[in-house]
């Protein structure tokens, strides 16, 4: 009375809901762990999951239990040298622990008071970018329409079996059957009647040849009627689908990084990590965002992603060169009426003497009116210089669309990033 069932093809992830409930409940703990880990990680290392630990006492499920104290007796195996009446010092010094055995520290390398589990890469990045968005994203002209969506567009005679329209096909088949059978049935009825007349005649008057002829006619007609197929290929009708373009938001992010000589290796590293975070955020949350990487010292250059993050090149600093380049790229490729334009800039705030005023002019005159949002992070432990002050006046003029923050050390990257891209109330 036993039977085997192969359950392997059954759905996995039966616990997925419970897992999500758990992550939801300990959201704040997990977020804190994720924040710490983002700051700890090296720049190339954002693409994996994370081990998160939560103090066990925070997630314990309490129940009534005995506390320490009182008198308890513990039976344990493996006596070697004890004799009855032996007295032993209490381990752990006076705390009145549970005697031997119970609650010994685990040998797993992690204390018992931490609950450790792994977040998958997806879950990890979900937490990293939770509650962030590109500000002021607008629906601009629908032009690059890569995204389409299938919509019903009537009935067609050709198609794949999965899209067969059963009702329409059956209706066609029925019409065809009626149409094709009608003349045959009429002929059959006539032949039958003729045969009946012939057979009712006096046997002497009967024409056996005529009877045979009618009989074979009837069989022939019956055969033909039977051979009409119930369903024929040209009855089949299919639901027709066409692809309708979907409206989507187009956006482009300009990443401008200062690689001049005044930026130390540590500064550059911080800058890169900031952009990497930005890059991951955009890749993950916005399919349609284009990225343009611009690096500059005295001259600006558009580079690809690889070069942006990994190449080493130095020189003096002229910030306006980058802004000019961005402006010309916009003019050449990204018409502001079609694209949402974003700029993120990282620098140590060092600039050629009178270039800051040029930057101010460039931003106010030609750039800011086109942009959705401009973010500037200054990576410096020192006092601000002319560039910051110049940008500060831009901020005053465009408080909604211009944000700037200072990063002193690597730990600031993530909080600053969150501050710059936090979700704003819809206004």
């Amino acid at each position, binding site marked *: 009375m036993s039977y085997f069932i192969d359950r392997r093809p059954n759905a996995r992830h039966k616990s997925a809901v419970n897992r999500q*409930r758990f992550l939801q409940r300990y959201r704040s703990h997990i977020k804190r762990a994720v924040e710490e880990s983002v700051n700890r990680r090296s720049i190339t290392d954002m693409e994996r999951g994370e081990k998160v630990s939560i103090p066990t006492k925070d997630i314990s499920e309490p*129940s009534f239990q005995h506390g320490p104290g009182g008198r308890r007796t513990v039976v344990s195996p493996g006596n*070697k040298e*004890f004799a009855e009446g032996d007295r032993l010092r209490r381990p752990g010094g006076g705390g009145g622990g549970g005697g031997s*055995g119970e609650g010994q520290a685990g040998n797993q390398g992690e204390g018992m008071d931490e609950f450790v589990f792994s977040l998958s890469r997806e879950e990890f990045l979900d937490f990293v970018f939770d509650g962030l968005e590109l500000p002021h994203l607008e629906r601009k002209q629908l032009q690059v329409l890569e995204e389409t969506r299938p919509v019903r567009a009537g009935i067609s005679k050709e198609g794949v079996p999965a899209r067969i329209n059963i009702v329409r096909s059956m209706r066609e088949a029925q019409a065809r059957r009626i149409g094709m059978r009608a003349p045959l049935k009429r002929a059959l009825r006539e032949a039958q009647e003729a045969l009946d007349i012939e057979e009712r005649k006096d046997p002497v008057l009967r024409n056996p040849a005529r009877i045979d002829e009618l009989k074979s006619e009837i069989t022939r007609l019956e055969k033909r009627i039977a051979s009409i197929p119930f369903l024929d290929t040209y009855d089949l009708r299919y639901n027709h689908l066409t692809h309708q373009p979907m409206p989507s938001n187009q956006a482009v992010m300009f990443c401008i990084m200062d690689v001049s000589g005044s930026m130390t290796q540590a500064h550059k590293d911080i800058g890169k990590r900031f952009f990497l975070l930005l890059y991951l955020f955009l890749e993950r949350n916005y399919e349609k965002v284009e990225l343009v990487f611009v690096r500059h010292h005295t001259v600006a250059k558009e580079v690809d992603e690889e070069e942006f993050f990994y190449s080493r090149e130095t020189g003096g600093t002229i910030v306006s060169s980058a802004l000019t380049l961005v402006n010309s790229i916009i003019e050449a490729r990204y018409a502001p009426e079609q694209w949402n334009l974003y700029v993120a800039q990282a620098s140590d705030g060092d600039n050629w003497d009178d270039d800051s005023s040029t930057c101010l002019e460039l931003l106010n005159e030609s750039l800011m009116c086109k942009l959705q949002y401009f973010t500037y992070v200054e990576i410096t432990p020192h006092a601000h210089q002319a560039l910051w002050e110049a940008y500060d006046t831009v901020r005053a003029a465009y408080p909604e669309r211009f944000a700037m923050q200072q990063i002193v050390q690597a730990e600031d990257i993530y909080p600053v990033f969150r501050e710059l891209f936090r979700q704003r109330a819809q206004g």
Partner: protein
Amino acid sequence: MTRRKPIATGSDWNFEALESYERAIAELAREYRLDTYPNQIEIITSEQMMDAYASVGMPIGYHHWSFGKQFLSVEQAYRRGQMGLAYELVINSDPCIAYLMEENSLMMQVLVIAHACYGHNSFFKGNYLFRTWTDASAIVDYLVFARSYVAKCEERHGVEAVEQLLDACHALQNYGVDRYKRPSPISADEEARRQEEREAYLQTQVNRLWSTIPPVVSELAQEPLHDHENDPLGLHRHGRYPSEPQENLLYFLEKNAPLLEPWQREIVRIVRKLAQYFYPQRQTQVMNEGWATFWHYTLMNRLYDDGLIDEGIMLEFLQSHTSVITQPGFDSPYFNGINPYALGFAMFSDIQRICRAPTEEDREWFPDIAGSDWLETLHFAMQNFKDESFIQQFLSPKVIRDLKLFSLVDDDRDDSLQIEAIHDDRGYRRIREALSVQYALSAREPNIQVWEADIRGDRSLTLRHVQDRRRPLGQSLFPVMRYLHQLWGFPIKLESTEEGDIVRRYQWPIPEPTRESA
């Protein structure tokens, strides 16, 4: 005995081989009079095993974050290779559902069939606790009912509200069992049919209990309201309510908590019913594992003797079996308490030995069973005991010697620990006694009962904790009292008593000191 050809060899399994082995084991099991529910053997992947694990062995359960936590910790341990997944999981249901992991070798699958499908299964069907407290044929249906009811409540009242309620109930689930009274069997049809009816009825009961208008006692009518018919709970007679202390806290709350909505009472009931279902398992760990281990060992040896498994499988089996019943000493880094497999297997094997080849010592200690029919005696032991009484009855001096058991007393009035007994003539009985107490649920869990609900005063609920050997309550007491407060809706008081005297009082919410001084 004629040696037959092995059914299969090597380590890869297939369904035909498993079916033949299952038939062969079933045949042997009949010979040993192992009475089982029909087996439903399910092959699953390791991931599915982790799922099954996370839901504490229930094939379907309602959703709750704590099962997610369980899953994450199992997954973490498994990924790091710290833990082999249990290669079997078996559910006390009719038919008895056993899970076999696909990664298992042929030997492991055969072993699991013997262990789970004939060992545990016959234990579920035979042991008196399971017979009394659980209804194997109804559990799966009831789980389906519970899951859909909880889901419906989540839809109607929000996930958070349900989760908070479940948290509170889970904290008290060990106190949601009737220890002495047999509960009515649970059945899904019945539950669903009666549930609405019950909601209405329960609410009227509670309304009556909490009615703030004092009953007008008509002296002429000789208190007509107070007869048993009208007032079965004795609420309107004077005196303490409840008149007897109540051990089943969840039951008491379900029936009496003034502020719970009908759906909340139903969820309290669900948690209570499931706690009741698991109650026998918590009391028969050593016996259950010992019984299953004894039988897989016996059945595997028979398969080998009959030639149905070859030397390769047998060696692999012995290696696996040995590691299952290993008992590290208390000072070993691998020590993690007494291994129930080791103790249970040792005891059942020893009972067999006492029956077959008793020594002088055995005749003196076990005059009733020494030399008796071993199969008869083993079945008797399996059917009529739980861990506590099983140890009290059958732990022999030989097993105590083999395991080198000793008992240690930790008394907070004493500066040092004391070895109370070791495996010698003077110690056997004391060790047996102490170990039996160690497995008694009543000694493992604090004894807490409902003492009084102040229905005519501030509506506070007073619980009494009877201290056992002066052991106080642990710190977790306060969060649990908070949950109680959440369910009851009015202040919770808890009194610890030692020999009838109250030694400590706790209260939640903690009274504000300013009010006291004012």
